[in-house]
């Protein structure tokens, strides 16, 4: 039996999100190993035209639920749509990004389909015709392999930034199939009545490729200005340690660590962060870690690739300037 992989594709400002392109690519690799096809699912308003684009990543079919009522996330409608798409696509694997949407929606889908789920995987492989999802637990203090041996679809969310996105050599012309219109009029018990946009347009910590993060030694909320300047130059998101959040220097949405966000950037620059076990857990899967701290004995220096011992108020402006010069070249 063909083992198809269905990828829930997310969009932002009329485009397919980069994290979804990564996942389509991984879905294509998995489907090939399993002897099935990659299929995609788009939900939203005005997303129909994006259906064809999934062909560049190897999708043979793209299911599209396009309606004004689907513009905003609605758990009841979206669950029904994903369940219908799984059935139509004969999906043995359902993949989504571990985003605000994926984390909220997929457990509900798994429960309705009476199947199991693996959360926030960082590696996927195939063994005995089943997907093995390797994932961090205890916020990254250790890892475990998760399999869903007896039920389908195997429902899996994956961390952003863990897969390479790559177009296939011979793009397909995916069959675009409209689904889900009947759910537009479905009565719902919960709905979004308003969306309050974020103050800045910076990338989210969980999706950012570069993060600059400050600890309590930043001393005030105003001093985050130097972090923002550095972030601006390298296109980074700004994070904070729990100590900085608890001191009121930064909101909780910026907290990196076991009781904040677990992040996975290419480059993590930790400024004035000593490296408490909970913080290290939340950022240890970063590809490259730079630490700046005035205390040469700080534990963070045991966990970094590059470290500078010194005062962050002196080092960060120098670093900003040096990056500016480099990126101008």
């Amino acid at each position, binding site marked *: 039996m063909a083992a198809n992989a269905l990828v829930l594709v997310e969009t932002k400002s009329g485009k397919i999100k980069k994290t979804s392109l990564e996942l389509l690519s991984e879905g294509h690799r998995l489907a090939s190993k399993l002897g099935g096809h990659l299929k995609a699912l788009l939900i939203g308003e005005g997303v129909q035209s994006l259906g064809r684009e999934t062909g560049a990543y190897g999708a043979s079919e793209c299911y599209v639920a396009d309606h004004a009522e689907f513009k905003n996330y609605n758990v009841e409608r979206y669950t029904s749509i994903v369940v219908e798409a799984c059935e139509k696509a004969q999906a043995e694997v359902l993949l989504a990004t571990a985003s605000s949407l994926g984390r909220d929606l997929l457990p509900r889908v798994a429960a309705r389909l009476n199947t199991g789920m693996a959360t926030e995987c960082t590696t996927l492989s195939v063994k005995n015709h089943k997907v093995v999802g390797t994932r961090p637990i205890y916020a990254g203090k250790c890892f475990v392999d998760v399999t869903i041996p007896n039920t389908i679809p195997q429902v899996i969310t994956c961390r952003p930034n863990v897969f390479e996105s790559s177009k296939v050599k011979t793009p397909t012309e995916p069959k675009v199939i409209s689904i889900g219109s009947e759910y537009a009029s479905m009565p719902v018990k919960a709905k979004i009545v308003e969306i309050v946009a974020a103050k800045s347009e910076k990338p989210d910590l969980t999706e950012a490729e570069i993060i600059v993060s400050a600890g309590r030694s930043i001393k005030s909320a105003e001093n985050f200005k130097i972090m923002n300047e550095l972030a601006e130059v390298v296109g980074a998101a700004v994070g904070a340690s729990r100590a900085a959040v608890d001191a009121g220097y930064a909101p909780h949405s910026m907290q990196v660590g076991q009781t904040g966000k677990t992040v996975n950037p290419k480059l993590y620059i930790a400024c004035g962060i000593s490296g408490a076990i909970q913080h290290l857990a939340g950022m240890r899967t970063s590809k490259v870690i730079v630490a700046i701290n005035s205390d040469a004995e700080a534990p963070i220096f045991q966990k970094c690739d590059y470290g*500078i011992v010194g005062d962050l108020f002196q080092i960060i402006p120098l670093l900003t300037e040096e990056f500016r010069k480099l990126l101008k070249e």
Partner: protein
Amino acid sequence: MKIGVCIKQVPDTATKIGVKEDHSGILEDNTKYIVSPYDEYALEEALRTKEKIGNSEVIVLSVGQKRTAEALRNALAMGCDKAIHINTEGQGFLDSHAIAKLLATKIQSESIVLVFTGRHAVDDDNCQVSQMLAEFLKCPHVTMVSKFALEGSKAKVERDVEGGAKEIWEVELPAVFAATKGLNEPRYASLKGIMQAKSKSLSDIPVTQTFAQDLTPKVLWSNYQMPAERKVGKIFKDEPAKAVKEVVRLLREEAKVI
């Protein structure tokens, strides 16, 4: 109104986690346990809601081994009215699906209409039980709740999403709400509360005897591993200006991340 709170006992976040030699699980000797931090926001919100609307009962539920009773006793000391311990002592691995089923059964039989949970438990980081529970209760859920207000039989809540944006949801009860940091400041149990807790009801219900559901896990966990250690990094101690130049050069030429 009957308000339910689901909590989980987890290793203290300051705990160093070790893996068993045969990779079959984590080492649990000498571990100190706490209530998962996000569940404390759930507890606090349940208690505040009761204080606001009056004429309510807060029931705290937990699925876990014998030791879980401590966590429930503490929740009673904080002000919950009664506790239900679905005791899994001696039971093998239970997955999120099974735990959500167990909780749903009790929540239904207690006629609870408003349920709070934490956004996820900080041990397994599964982030599944709240949503699965809502599905089994056939009611809506909202996760990442950072603001909650009850308006009659509806709740108006804020949900934190990517990049610092917020969604405002209107939800008809019954419903499940998963709390995140920022929702409130959890209280500590008072001495009076601790004394009162001793006479409150804590029912211990062994899983095996009481529940008819099939609890066979749908997921299997194996091959527990410690993360790969990073090789020792290059640390620069003198001449900040020079160090900065060198690190930026290495980031481009050696690490190739910029």
